[in-house]
């Protein structure tokens, strides 16, 4: 799970030429994803047995600085591509394929404040770039089905 943030860091470096640092205590496993950041961009991952979510969150000011474009649409577009790349990289990690199977990813989504994804295998990390802070999280849980 913890390799997920490495996929994100690589995507940011390749797409924007910028290196983020992971803040202490580093990437940690958590029972749910939770952030108070105002702007979230996410990509879903799933197969018949598992559903997952990878998310980055921060302020629009920090995203604008990272992307280098002050148009919100361009920010969402560029960060969507970062998350798309991150999800693809994560889903291809051999240990992840072994544990969860082949995960299919969805298109990037913008989400609201305070999203949680409980009852999941999850990890999160706070990342720093200049004066900006970014929340990165990834969670996978069994598909929730109703039994009739």
């Amino acid at each position: 799970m913890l390799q997920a943030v490495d996929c994100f860091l690589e995507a940011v470096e390749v797409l924007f030429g910028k290196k983020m640092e992971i803040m202490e205590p580093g990437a940690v496993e958590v029972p749910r994803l939770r952030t108070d950041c105002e702007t979230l961009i996410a990509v879903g991952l799933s197969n018949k047995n598992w559903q997952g979510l990878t998310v980055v969150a921060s302020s629009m000011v920090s995203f604008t600085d990272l992307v280098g474009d002050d148009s919100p649409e361009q920010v969402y577009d560029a960060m969507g591509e970062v998350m798309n790349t991150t999800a693809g990289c994560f889903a291809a990690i051999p240990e992840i394929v072994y544990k969860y199977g082949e995960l299919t990813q969805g298109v990037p989504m913008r989400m609201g404040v305070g999203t949680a994804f409980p009852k999941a295998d999850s990890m999160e990390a706070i990342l720093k770039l200049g004066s900006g802070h970014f929340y990165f999280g990834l969670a996978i849980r069994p598909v929730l089905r109703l039994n009739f």
Partner: protein
Amino acid sequence: MTKKIIIVDDSNFLAKQIKAFMENEMGFDIVAIGRDGNDAIDLYKQYQPDLLTLDLTMPNKDGKAAIWEILQEYPKAKILVISAVKGRTMVECLKMGARNYIEKPLRFADALFIDEFKETILSVINDE
């Protein structure tokens, strides 16, 4: 004659990068840019380009469905998949008839990647 290229990717950010590369590094003419599988099919019919670059994960209609529909009508279409999706899907696209597959992220700052990317593009365009 200048090669005609269509780029299809739901990320405008990435489509612009690919366009700049194709125009500046390879001297190609980008005749259209699409955002989903429906655009890929419609634009292919309209322009019948020398090369279609195609993302897979897109809204409305994905790249795999577009590959199938385009090749049904244009079996000689030259499609290069550019996607973050790896693994079995990659193999499925090639079995369906896509000519080659480039994994995202596109490392335009890496000289080795640029050489490989150019070589792959030319091998698809020149492949009869």
